């Protein structure tokens, strides 16, 4: 076969730590980064927990970047991007960038408004942030942002893959970033969507999501047959429920369609999926909807493992699709599926195969990533081993 689109580099920072090794180890050991909030007026919200990137992690990032004038969001995005780029030596002139984010540098924006200091508004704009992050990384290609709520990450990766396939770009760095802010904590409180305790995806006692923050980056490139990569993208799809601006369609029809279309694009049967990296926010509606969508496609066969990473790292909003794709790469490399933290008792209408401890990932199978977001959008991505066949 000719060439395909592969992930050839990755970077990550979350509440679990900096870099993929640290994050993966924490994931396999069922660690959670959801802790008591500091630095925010928790009495204004309906929760006092969130998954914040630690000060220790931030100090390490600032030290490595050598520039502490950068905001939290900018520094995480640039650092994760650098890590992904470092895995290959590609001429940065030929690399384009897509920034995936819901609120970009909003924490910095609200701090600036609160303090009344005069400051340029430009860098709070996601499109401008994309260009500035690209400039920091010395990338010479195009730079723009994709902002599709919680599905941004997968939609950005899909966008990059399409651009590579049709020759609109030679290499593409997808960086996802979102940070905690008074704004999002207050907003999700207004929507009554936050759990007062750490989120429990798919569990019968689940009562809402936990917010998180972080950055993830994947470097996409055309990969020839016989060439190695961290993972090969096999299929993808994006759909819209067209029912409600925040709630998913109850039976998950839009997500089911996105799963089926991605499989059709890959030319695969559902049996080829060994692990589903779910959206799994921990709200009653989302997890229920996902169980319906999964059951519709994987119905009577042996169910693939399915986990949510949001019990470990919280809901990282626009960055989630990129961060969780990066965190799924070691599943292919180590052949282990990490446990779904926060899950004890099945709490969704359709039975799912949710592991409570690490389980072996069947070698040769693929991963299905899925994310759904406000605005009724659903996105799916199928990726498999990057070992040359």
């Amino acid at each position, binding site marked *: 076969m000719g060439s395909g689109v592969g992930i050839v580099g990755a970077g990550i920072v979350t509440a679990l730590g900096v870099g993929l090794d640290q994050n993966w180890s924490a994931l396999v050991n069922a660690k959670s980064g959801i802790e008591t909030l500091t630095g925010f007026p928790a009495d204004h919200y309906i929760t006092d927990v969130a998954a914040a990137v630690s000060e220790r992690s931030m100090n390490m990032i600032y030290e490595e970047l050598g520039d502490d004038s950068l905001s939290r969001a900018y520094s995480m995005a640039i650092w994760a991007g650098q890590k992904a780029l470092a895995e290959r030596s590609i001429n940065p002139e030929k690399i384009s960038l897509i920034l995936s984010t819901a609120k970009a540098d909003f924490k910095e924006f609200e701090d600036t408004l609160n303090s009344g200091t005069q400051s340029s508004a430009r860098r709070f704009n996601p499109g401008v942030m994309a260009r500035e992050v690209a400039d920091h990384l010395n990338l010479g290609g195009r730079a723009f942002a994709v902002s599709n709520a919680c599905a941004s990450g997968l939609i950005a990766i899909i966008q990059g893959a399409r651009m590579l396939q049709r020759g609109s770009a030679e290499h593409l760095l997808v960086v996802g970033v979102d940070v905690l802010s008074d704004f999002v904590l207050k907003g999700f409180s207004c929507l009554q969507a936050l759990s007062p305790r750490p989120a429990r995806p798919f569990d019968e006692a689940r009562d809402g999501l936990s917010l998180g923050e972080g950055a993830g980056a994947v470097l996409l490139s055309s990969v020839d047959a016989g060439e190695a990569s961290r993972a090969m993208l096999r299929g993808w799809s994006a759909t819209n429920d067209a029912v409600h*601006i*925040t*709630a998913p369609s109850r039976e998950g029809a839009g997500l089911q369609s996105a799963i089926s279309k991605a499989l059709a694009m890959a030319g695969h049967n559902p049996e080829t999926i060994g692990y589903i990296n779910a959206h799994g926010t921990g709200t009653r509606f989302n997890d229920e909807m996902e169980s319906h969508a999964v059951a519709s496609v994987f119905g009577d066969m042996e169910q693939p493992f399915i986990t949510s990473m949001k019990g470990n790292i919280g809901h990282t909003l626009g960055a989630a699709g990129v961060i969780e794709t990066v965190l799924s790469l070691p599943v292919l490399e180590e052949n282990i599926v990490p446990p779904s933290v926060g899950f004890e008792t099945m709490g969704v209408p359709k039975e799912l195969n949710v592991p409570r401890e690490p389980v072996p990932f069947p070698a040769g199978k693929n991963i299905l990533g899925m994310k759904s977001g406000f605005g009724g959008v659903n996105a799916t991505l199928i990726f498999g081993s990057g070992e040359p066949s």
Partner: protein
Amino acid sequence: MDDLISELKVGIIKHLGFDDMEPDEIETDAPLFETGLGLDSIDALELVVLLKESYGIEIKDIEEGKTIFASIQVLSEFVKENRQK
């Protein structure tokens, strides 16, 4: 029309943002959710805010709201019994 009932209809139109609707377009006994007025989950949250701001009633559990919001008639009876303002 009962004053409270007409007040609730006006309040719902104004607070929930149904600009072009007239109060007498809302049937007093028709369901508010699913059918009838066809309110959604965000409207439900906005109704909870309305009850707090206009009548001082706190709804702790949104599930409780489902029975209270069965119709304008049912809602007005609930407000009569529980209003703090």
